[in-house]
Every structure is written in C-alpha cells, then in structure tokens.
C-alpha cells in the first residue's frame, strides 16, 4: 500500500499556536502549507467522514491559523487597493467583508481572499500556501506609503455548522449580540476575557464563524469551545470534503495563474463598477470574458457508481477530451462521488452526460448545479 499523492516539502515545517493542543486531541498531523496541521482526529467521532457529518449536523472547530492575516493602512488606501484588486471598496461598509481575487496582469488567479473594512484599515485573509507570495506581490504593487502588517502572532479559528451560533453565543459578548452578525459581517467581541474579531463566514457552506485572536489565547479558546456539547475539533480532511460539497474552489487546485475567475464562475468577485471601469490587473481580459464568455467553464460533476475521480483526471465527451478534473472525492453527505472540472463550454450545460477517465476506465458523470449541498448561511432572522 502506498499513497499515490505525495506531499513535497523542501522547507522546515512551521509550528502553529495550537500544535500541542491538536496532538493532545489525538490529531494526525501532516505537512500542509508549510506547517504541521491536523488532517483528522482520533476517537469515536474522529475520521474524515465522522468529522464531516458532525460539522453538517452540529458544529466543528477548525484551526486555520496557517492562513495569512494582513492589515493594510495608509493614505488613499481604497484607491490604491482598487488598483490591485477588482473590488469596489466604495460599497464595502465598516463591519463587512467581501470575497476578492489577487490577479496577475493576464487575469490569472494568484490567490483568492477576504477583504474586511476595519476603521482606518483593510484586513485581508489570504491562503496559507500563497501568503508569502501575496505579501511580496502587494508590497510590489502598493505604494511605499501603505503599511502592510502581517499579523503573524494571530491565530484563526473557524467554528462551522448549524449549532455553531448556539455554542459561540454562550461565550461571546460585545457591543451587540452575536445574533446581530449576518453572513459576511464581522465585529469585535470578548471571548474568555480576550479581545477577538468574529466574522460570520466560513468554508463549509454551513452557517458559522471565523474568529481571529491572539495566538496566546488560542489554546484557551479552543478548549473552551470544544467544551460545548455541540463542538468537536475537525481536521483538514473534512474541511476539504465540506468545501467541495459546498462548491467552493480551493486555491492551487481549482484556481491558479492558469485559470481566470470568469472561467471559474467567480464573476461576483469582479465587483460591478470594476467590470466597466477596469483599472485592475488583468482587467482587459477579464472584462472581455464577462461580455464574450469563456472557452471553458468550471462545473460540478456527479459520478455514477462509487469510484471517485481525483484531480488531474481527464474528462471526455465520446472520444473527445474536453476537460480536466481539478478536485474530486467521495461526498460523505451525498453518498456518491463528486468532482469539479474545467470543461469546454459547449459541454458545460447542466445535465450534460460526460465521462471521466480513471485508471483506463471511463466513469459516467453528469454536469450538475453547484453547490452540490445547499449553502445554509445565516442572512438574518426569518
């Protein structure tokens, strides 16, 4: 037996604030984005499928401290950031966050990220594996007067699932109740005596929160939250299966400099004003693609049978190769394999019957709408 997917790591691995805590919870640690990270936990509720199902039905605590937390400030901040990101900051209000994209001059994706409006600052959360390149890119493209503060001593925890709000509300106090936060809003709160920033967002498709906190407070708060009956720690394995079901792209797999955000269906990441005005890297190509369409599209595929198709598997229509899988696996919630792939736009319509080649076999697959599992974000009391 041997894993066919090898992890290549040529740098010494970093240690995150919760390293010892994860090990004490029975985590299996693996190299990820330059750190040792928990892929799954031991025990009767451990393992990717159990952790996945726990998050979908209760609440899971994810350590995502490998991600980069950046704070930007300086003169004409909005204008200079708009020169780097296709975001419309005139409509980003204090207390709101928005999805955006770091693009190269050709419109290829360098990273996807969250931008939050803080008083006097913009706060960015970027992917762990790309954070050093992102910092270099931002330093190069932003004027010297802009201060870029990499909050390396901060930890980031995500509490995700239908019972996340109940569990967190028992401990979070602030100017207003946690329930006042709706999807993609954030605020300052106190948690176990610590000042934390809580955003109502996540990467699972469920209601949930992302908590930015001092690394020194991470163990205490992780222990506190996992002491709630609804909450268990969840590893990277389930994080990946949850985000795939939610149809959320993973940078480095579904997005790369070789893909444009329009191909990936991320047109919402190009804010409306910017689609006509341009003025961001790659605008010419992207704005043209918004009008004319793209030659290929990122689609969801439902596979027949039980054999999954993985990243790199080729997609066929008859004898013609028309695409490639960028992520795929067995969906614990749905009980069948799902995949996402870039396919020629002529074959991207929902219901199109295609085949995926896995180990010289052709697996029947059908183009289906995404998300595979409906999002359940909290957008206000019903």
């Amino acid at each position, binding site marked *: *037996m041997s894993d066919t997917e090898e992890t290549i790591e040529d740098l010494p691995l970093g240690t995150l604030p919760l390293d010892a805590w994860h090990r004490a919870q029975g985590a299996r640690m693996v190299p990820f984005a330059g750190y040792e990270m928990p892929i799954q936990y031991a025990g009767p509720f451990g393992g990717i499928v159990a952790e*996945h199902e726990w998050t979908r039905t209760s609440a899971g605590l994810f350590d995502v401290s490998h991600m980069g937390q950046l704070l930007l400030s300086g003169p004409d901040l909005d204008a200079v950031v708009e020169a780097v990101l296709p975001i419309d900051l005139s409509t980003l209000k204090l207390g709101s966050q928005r999805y955006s994209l770091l693009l190269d001059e050709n419109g290829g994706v360098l990273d996807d990220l969250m931008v939050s409006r803080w008083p006097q600052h913009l706060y960015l959360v970027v992917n762990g594996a790309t954070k050093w390149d992102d910092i270099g890119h931002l330093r190069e493209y932003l004027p010297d007067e802009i201060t870029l503060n990499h909050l390396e001593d901060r930890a980031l925890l995500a509490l995700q699932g239908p019972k996340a709000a109940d569990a967190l509300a028992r401990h979070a106090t602030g100017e207003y109740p946690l329930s006042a936060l709706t999807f993609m809003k954030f605020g300052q709160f106190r948690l176990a005596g610590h000042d934390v920033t809580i955003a109502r967002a996540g990467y699972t498709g469920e209601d949930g929160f992302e908590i930015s906190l001092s690394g020194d407070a991470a163990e205490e708060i992780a222990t506190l939250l996992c002491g709630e009956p609804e909450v268990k720690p969840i590893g990277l394995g389930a994080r*990946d299966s949850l985000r795939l079901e939610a149809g959320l792209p993973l940078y480095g797999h579904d997005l790369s400099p070789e893909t444009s955000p329009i191909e990936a269906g991320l047109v919402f990441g190009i804010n409306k004003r910017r689609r006509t005005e341009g003025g961001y890297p790659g605008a010419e190509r992207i704005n043209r693609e918004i009008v004319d369409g793209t030659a290929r599209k990122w689609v969801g595929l439902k596979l027949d049978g039980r*054999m999954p198709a993985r990243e790199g598997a080729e997609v066929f229509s008859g004898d013609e190769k028309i695409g490639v899988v960028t992520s795929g696996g067995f969906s614990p919630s749905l009980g069948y394999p799902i995949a996402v792939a870039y396919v020629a736009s002529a074959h991207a319509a929902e219901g199109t019957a295609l085949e995926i080649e896995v180990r010289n076999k052709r697996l029947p697959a059908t183009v289906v709408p995404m998300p595979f599992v409906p999002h359940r974000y909290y957008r206000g009391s019903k």
Partner: protein
Amino acid sequence: MARYFTDEHEWIDVDGDNATVGITDYAQEQLGDIVFVELPATGTMLDKGGDAAVVESVKAASDVYAPISGEVMETNAALEEDPALVNTSPEEDGWFFKMTLGDKSELEGLMDAKAYKAFCESL
C-alpha cells in the same frame, strides 16, 4: 496456515498452494474511511510488487501491491457493497482477493506478525 506481511502493509495468508491477501489494520488506520476498493479481475496474473488493487479513501487513492506472484482466483464481493469492511475488519472479513502461489520462494523476505509489529512501531 501462515500469515506474512509486506513493508507496504499488505498481509497474505498462505494455505498450501493458495493465498488470501488484504491490507493491515495499520494500513486502514492510515488511510481513513474507505469508500471504494477496485479489485483485480479473476484470472489476472499478478507480479510480486506490482499493482494489484486500488483503495479509495475520502481523501486519496492508494495502490495495493501483490505480495507475491500468482493468479487471482477470487475477489471479495462483499467489498463492493460495503467497502468500509476494510476499516472494520481489515485482516478478516475485509480481505481483498485469493490467489495462487506462483513461487513459494517469494515468501522469503516477507515479515511474520512479530517482525511486522516491530516494523510498524519503527515508523
């Protein structure tokens, strides 16, 4: 009947000229939740150390190698319905296939239970 182990975490039970092959408890623990097992067709000629089967967990596909050379005589149909048998009973009900024993000398160099246990502890 004697059981041997490979350093790729397969086990092989040898009974006369026939053998049964599966993956070890250590292997299933490492793989996590198994969702699909692709077994060789009956009649396939396997080479020692060559690809014999593929185990799909939620996260990845892993190859299973033939511990020895021989012909596949039977595969475990129960794994089609319930691939999780490999997790719950890896060294009994979750067996993969039965094969002929082409060359008994190939068993030399495989580990016994005690050696395999020590091998796993060294990992």
